């Protein structure tokens, strides 16, 4: 079997006395859609923060595309091809929709110490940005302010921005958070389209979404892995039923 694109070994992070992530391990192979599920407080957010480089682990190792990235800062992880979407919508609200995406494209188009030519009239940025917006069905709103978008549309924009960095792998932190059924359906469609094309690590609450999308599911409880495997195996796993699915009726 090929080397996994992302490999996490014995990851640990404590806040004061609380062990948020406590010996977590994970392996994601290329083009796989891998979901991490777990009850509230299981440490999923801390995990994502460490994978994206916003938080430094106390110990453990993260390897991405054969390279140890444990100490690599966030902006450089993005350059290595690891893109992240945020649980709490995190777009540039005062900028137009297309500016949001163009800014993400610009981040990966060489350095930005270019002080003179107007960025908004640079087809090297605007054309791929528009293409990206088409992929998430937002092209018509390109020149609206991001703050004028509905919650669901902002989440779509969030994905477009992550995609605009042409990543090898997407870290999706609860892409369905706070969405209505119609918005969720659109998002699942978008992710369905990306599935198989991009490697995805999905941290998600919505069980229907997870079972519909994931090739592999890892169940996280109290900062640790209690089970990992294909969806059917997870569904029938005794530990998981007791620790998690049973409680939430999933």
């Amino acid at each position, binding site marked *: 079997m090929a080397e996994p694109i992302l490999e996490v070994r014995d990851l640990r992070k404590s806040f004061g006395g609380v062990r948020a992530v406590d010996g977590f391990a994970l392996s994601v192979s290329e083009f796989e859609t891998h979901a991490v599920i777990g009850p509230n407080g299981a440490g999923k957010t801390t995990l994502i923060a460490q994978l994206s480089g916003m938080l430094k682990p106390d110990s453990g190792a993260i390897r991405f595309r054969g390279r140890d990235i444990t100490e690599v800062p966030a902006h450089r992880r*993005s350059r290595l091809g690891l*893109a992240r979407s945020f649980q709490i919508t995190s777009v*540039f609200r*005062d900028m137009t929709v297309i500016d949001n995406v163009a800014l993400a494209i610009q*981040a990966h188009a060489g350095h*930005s110490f270019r002080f003179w030519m107007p960025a908004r009239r640079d087809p090297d940025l605007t054309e791929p940005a528009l293409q990206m917006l088409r992929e998430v069905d937002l092209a018509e709103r390109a020149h609206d302010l991001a703050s004028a978008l509905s919650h669901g549309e902002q989440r779509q924009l969030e994905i477009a921005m992550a995609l605009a960095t042409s990543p090898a792998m997407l870290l999706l932190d609860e892409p369905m958070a706070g969405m209505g059924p119609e918005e969720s359906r659109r998002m699942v469609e978008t992710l369905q389209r990306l599935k198989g094309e991009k490697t995805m690590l999905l941290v998600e609450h919505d069980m229907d979404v997870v079972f519909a999308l994931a090739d592999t599911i890892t169940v996280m409880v109290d900062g640790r892995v209690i089970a990992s495997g294909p969806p059917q195996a997870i569904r029938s796993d005794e530990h998981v039923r007791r620790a998690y699915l049973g409680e939430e009726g999933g």
Partner: protein
Amino acid sequence: METPATIDRQAAAPTTRPRLGVRGWTMLIVLAVLAIAPYLLFKAGHGFYLDVATRAVILSIAAVGLNFILGYGGMISFGHAAYLGIGAYSVGIPAYYGVYDGLVHFPLAIAASALFALLTGAVCLRTRGVYFIMITMAFAQMVYYAFVSLEEYGGDDGLVINARSRLPVIDLESNIQLYYLSFVSLVALLYVVHRIVNSRFGMVVQGSKGNDERMRAIGYHTYVYRLVAYVISGAICGYAGALLANFSSFISPEMTYWTRSGELIFMVILGGTGSLFGPVLGAVGFLALEEILSSFTVYWPFLFGVILIMVVLFARRGIDSLLGPRDGHG
């Protein structure tokens, strides 16, 4: 016939070139008035007010420089008077030794300010919010006390400059020529800042104001970009400081005192943060208010305070907000 490609191109570019609008006209009219201000003032027999106009233009330059990081970059520096002081001392100290060459003064003012901005910015930009405000202020106060301790250059009392900077072609001993040097500098600066703000670099600075974590997540090392913006801003204020020293023919530590930094922030807020021309309206408005209010009462700073509170409460974007809503294009 339109091919799909041309349609794309239209959609990708912000429809048409933005038309001038109220904001653009205001800028042109104010600049036009400033351009003929000396003529108007002498015609009206108020030549004395040329001094006020010169100060307004020089402080406009400083306010535009501060707004570049405060309005566009979200970096609220409470220490920008330090750069005015460094720029002014870059004129005063060489002059003290008999060096009056403007081609020494102005480059020195810009270089010294940029260097100070680089060194202090490297520290300040590791902090955010209130900490950033406090630490920029602390550095400016350090400059203040450093100047106070320079006994050789007058210490507390400051230093009189015997002659203004000597430049080729223009003669700064003429108040009108000094005014026009300042005015042309302001117009050129507005154009340069306009270009920078809308460039790739400017987009990064604005992005990190809105959401720095997101900027890092999409791959920007925002610290470096913010630092460069901070240095540019400091250099602009240093240049304004060199003009100010020429204007008043006097330098003193008081120029860098924290209340001076506060006044610069006031100008930016009064005019409207994050708009290109707002700081100019703010600086002109500030000096006009100062003139008018102080002619009524010696307690004018109190009235000033009331006005500032009103602006912050009711007109978030200052005078600029009177010119109508702004679209997403800075």
